[in-house]
């Protein structure tokens, strides 16, 4: 829940994960290179590049940040600064699937919090963490615009409506 606290701890996480993760296959970097070339002559493309790089690589560890900074001829501090500002970008490896429980107002008044509590317990993870088996990353979303279906849960790109603690277990068992 408390993202500000998580944020302040992010820089150290980043440094650690950067040195620990072994480099991924070269081809992913060459894919990112292609993205950068596509945007090269467009002003203010850093965020778009980060979006596509995250899609290719899954997350944005230090090597990827350094690579993007060098390729775009930007200081690394700028790349890391932009990345840490936006909650959509992740510097930690992510699970196979991302569960995002909506806690927008409509979902909150209709009991979204109960689903969060239930998942914390049943998956044995905190908000923002990934399960031990690497299957799910568990996050809270600030309104996904499905207020007519509250409380809603989004798993990857699929929205599930009127979820209850009992229903979510059944949904997760399908993944």
């Amino acid at each position, binding site marked *: 829940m408390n993202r500000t606290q998580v944020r302040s701890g992010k820089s150290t996480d980043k440094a650690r994960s950067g040195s620990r993760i072994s480099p991924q296959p070269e081809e992913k970097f060459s894919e990112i290179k292609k993205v950068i070339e596509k945007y090269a002559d467009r002003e203010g493309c850093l965020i778009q590049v980060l*979006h596509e790089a995250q899609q290719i690589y899954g997350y944005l560890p230090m090597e990827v940040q350094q690579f993007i900074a060098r390729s775009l001829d930007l200081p690394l501090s700028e790349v890391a600064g932009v990345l840490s500002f936006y*909650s959509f970008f992740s510097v930690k490896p992510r699970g196979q699937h991302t569960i995002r429980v909506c806690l927008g107002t*409509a979902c909150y008044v209709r009991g979204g919090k109960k689903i969060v509590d239930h998942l914390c317990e049943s998956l044995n993870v905190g908000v923002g963490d990934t399960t031990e088996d690497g299957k799910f990353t568990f996050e809270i979303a600030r309104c996904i615009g499905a207020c007519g*279906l509250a409380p809603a849960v989004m798993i990857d790109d*699929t929205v599930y409506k009127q979820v209850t603690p009992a229903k979510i277990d059944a949904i997760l068992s399908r993944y």
Partner: protein
Amino acid sequence: MNIVRSHVLVCGGTGCTSSNSPEIIKQFNKELDKRGLSDEVKVIQTGCFGLCALGPIVIVYPEGSFYSMVKPEDVEEIVEEHILKGRIVKRLLYEGDLKEAKVATSLNDTNFYKKQKRIALRNCGVIDPENIDEYIANDGYQALAKVLTQMTPEEVIDTITASGLRGRGGAGFPTGRKWAFAAKEDNPVKYVCCNADEGDPGAFMDRSLLEGDPHSIIEAMAIAGYAIGAHQGYVYVRAEYPIAVKRLQIAIRQAREYGFLGEDIFGTGFNFDLDVRLGAGAFVCGEETALMRSIEGHRGEPRPRPPFPAVKGLFDKPTILNNVETYANVPWIINNGPEAFASIGTEKSKGTKVFALGGKITNTGLVEIPMGTTLREVIEEIGGGVPNGKKFKAAQTGGPSGGCIPESLIDTPMDFESLAAVGSIMGSGGLIVMDEDNCMVDIAKFFLQFTVDESCGKCTPCRIGMRRLLELVDKITSGNGTLEDIELTEQLCYHIKENSLCGLGQTAPNPVLSTLQHFRDEYIAHVVDKRCPAGVCKNLLRYQILAEKCIGCTSCARVCPVGAISGEVKKPHTIDTSKCIKCGACMEKCKFGAIVKN
């Protein structure tokens, strides 16, 4: 061109998609194929019809039969009975007036639609958003043609000014005036931006507009470009809206192919093109200066104004930024004239407003009403009231920048001035209904947690002040607050409002101030009686077993995770409050209503 005898419209908005509408479309095509009807009947995926709670929704024309909560296995029956034999499937019709009349007339006769006036949403649920021809057939790009061939930029701005259109993103600044400021600037490079970073929790009209009618936004932005002398536009849209992004990109590509974007539009020598920029999950980017920083690829931090964006905006060039819904009104105004628009609404708030109805209300979904419609009409008539026999307590408008309207003010007209007068704001149009089970202090805390998370940290009043404010309210909800804390809370709210840099901080204390204004007694109950009247705040809850109702079945004792319940079989049980963790499992389990919380 093929002439088809029947159209089947299936809602493909986010709501209905999650209720499996893609499967319904597949089934329709399969069943029609099987019967050799594919050439006679066309299945179309449209944008949102608005009635999300009853999705997926299917409408069959020419009859206009409005089927709700359709399941893939119902499709065969609709095809066999309705399309083949002409017999409407009554069991699937939307409940309400239609069913009683036994004839499926137009959906405008239902309570949900009767009071609505759809201008911004005119094409949502009517056309296929991924097909530019359908938009054109519904007068699409006619306004752009009229503007480019028959009007001067000044006339366009005068038309918008005369219509009285005000920004639909929240603040309600007159759109015509904004355009005039930017038009006045002498600079060969200017920009037109669209704010589709719909961050207010509880609002989803921008999403539905982009999903249901993306071309109207493109058309309006081109019109704005002509009016102020810009040749490039940007749509800044949330990455959390994948369907909206996809349809917008399709629409831009089609518009380029048809020559409505690009160079020499309609042979008039006017050039205009659009780019989509994805947001990345930062609420503050809904603020105009922060949004522009983000389009430029930087951290989305706001900056002081002036200079206003109309003078120095994106890439330091004159820029106008309007909300999605504002743009959606523009082509309609050009086509129908400013007088038609100005004739709707109240003296100072013209036209219509789209609200996202959510929370404890029967018909959740999207509604578009003339400005000045009362809250009571919206909740009781259009929304169908509060479900489960509960009592209406308050409606929250404006999200984290807004406030609550209590039951005593339910006859408040929904327009910019009236909402401000009762301590709330119009905002982007989220309308969350709360019943007696919602604690207003808890709701205020919910919004504070949101704004504390989303504060960008640039200015101190917002970064630190909001955190202190949250701590104070948290102290109250945990039962440790005093009457002085309530006063301190109020004072701090005013300090933050007055001293913050941008709209986020200046409005962030509003949820607290408005609940203090209308529900002060609940705050006092939390600090003086150490009680949460709605039974929400966990620390102040006490579960109790009513001895006269308890029959000693032991099911509560068995379900209690911490063993706080004891008692002999067939004798009344008791709860050890020192062990109780207030999970509520016992209350859910008890069949005799013997467990109460207070």
